[in-house]
């Protein structure tokens, strides 16, 4: 077998074996906190396929999606401005560093006060957290573009929107994606945190509610769903990244 095949086999086999092991080990478990894994899985199927999917998973995903998308757009847009002008970057740096330093959950009380308990508050919190990695990485990415590339663009009169589209954004692309990736995991965290406080639906809300009602298998099913979501979102992200940054990965592969 080739190395690649062995690697793939290990990647698939390890979690499967671990899961089987857990099922066997937890079989007949009397523990209140750790019910048998089979029971968790049954509950998972009954809950999320698809009884509560629309009522709890969809609202969560909606907030995550809107908040994350807004953060990415805002982060890139502001990053382009700050990355293109030294004086703007100088002026903004202390403010950015201050805002970034605020522990994100501390924004929730303010969000509730201003935006209420609904989706808006949660989206606001997610965006406020996710915008910084994208913003800072975009600034770094733009500053790191090779001066010869920029000279080339200048010499050929490539400017304005065309310069942004064909030179600046692709040049900063690898860094921008690194920022977006960090933000994606932050988005998932903030989605759950915002739903644990004053919420009426969502996966985070469901996990908390189940725990309060001593519905432990239900609570576990919510946690499992969050883990799966994180895994799938990341996989989706990697897929998009590989498409958009194919040139970058290819070029790096050649360099090695």
């Amino acid at each position, binding site marked *: 077998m080739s190395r690649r095949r062995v690697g793939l086999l290990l990647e698939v086999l390890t979690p499967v074996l671990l899961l089987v092991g857990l099922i066997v080990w937890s079989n007949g478990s009397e523990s209140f906190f750790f019910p048998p894994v089979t029971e968790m899985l049954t509950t998972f199927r009954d809950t999320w396929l698809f009884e509560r999917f629309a009522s709890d998973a969809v609202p969560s995903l909606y907030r995550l999606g809107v908040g994350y998308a807004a953060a990415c757009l805002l982060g890139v847009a502001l990053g382009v401005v700050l990355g293109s002008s030294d004086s703007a970057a100088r002026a903004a740096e202390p403010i950015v560093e201050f805002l970034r330093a605020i522990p994100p959950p501390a924004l929730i009380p303010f969000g509730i006060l201003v935006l209420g308990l609904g989706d808006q508050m949660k989206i606001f919190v997610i965006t406020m957290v996710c915008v910084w990695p994208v913003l800072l990485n975009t600034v770094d990415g733009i500053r790191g573009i*090779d001066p*010869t*590339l920029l*000279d*080339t663009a*200048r*010499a*050929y*009169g*490539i400017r304005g929107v*065309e310069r942004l589209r*064909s*030179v600046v954004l*692709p*040049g900063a*692309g690898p860094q921008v994606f690194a920022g977006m990736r960090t933000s994606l995991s932050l988005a998932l965290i903030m989605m759950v945190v915002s739903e644990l406080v004053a919420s009426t639906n969502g996966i985070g809300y469901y996990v908390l509610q189940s725990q309060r009602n001593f519905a432990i298998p239900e609570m576990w099913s919510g946690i499992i769903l969050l883990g799966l979501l994180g895994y799938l979102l990341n996989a989706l992200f990697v897929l998009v990244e590989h498409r958009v940054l194919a*040139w*970058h990965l*290819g*070029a790096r592969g*050649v*360099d090695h």
Partner: protein
Amino acid sequence: MHADQKGAPMLDVIGLKKTYGTGDKATVAIGDVSFSVSAGEFVCVVGPSGCGKTTLLKCMSGLLASSAGEVRLHGTRIDGPPEQMALVFQDYSRSLMPWLTVRGNISLPLKRLRLSHQERDQRVAEAVESVGLDSFTDHYPWQLSGGMQQRVAIARALAYQPDILLMDEPFASVDAQTRADLEDVVLRIRERYNITILFVTHDIDESVYLADRVIVLSSRPTSVQEVVQVPLPSPRDQVATKELPEFAHLRAHIYRAIKRVPDARAAVGA
């Protein structure tokens, strides 16, 4: 393209000076450089290493503001990269967009010219054919060798159809064989398009082989040390031309001119 008569002055460099920094810390990179390039001419600029050739080229292309003097293209003063000028940088791997294919790189500067799709495609096709990269239009730069990447940069400049082509030590980082091939590519292109070329190099052989006229620069603060006519027959040939006694003579002459620089300056100082 501009309808210049062959032999009419196209590019004028008049009293160009470039100083970095101010006050006591100021360093004079370019002392005083003046010369002209006529339409259709192939002019090489050589000089000792570190004499500010790249700085000079950046000033001429409008990428860098000069401290004094001016550069005129078709009689108009340059204060930014002019539209009728194309540039080929030394560092091909950093002047091609790695996210664009060969075709994408060549057609990028053409976008602002608002050509029809048909004409754009035609220009790209013709340019890649001129540099011998016909079958590589869909490759990315990093999939090509160094010499091929520099061909792409040349094709990009060609498709742009400039009046004048500025080349900054374009073959300094390729191997000798590739270098000879690329020199001939440039000569063929020049023949075919009757393009005006200003070629900066530190290689004396290369300058004599390519040029109609060689401008020899002094070391810093840079000025024009000597202008040498190259009356070698065309078309040039890597073997036959370099065999000519005249070639050896010119080569030796320029070599001495460059080496003589310190003596000349000492004499002036004394």
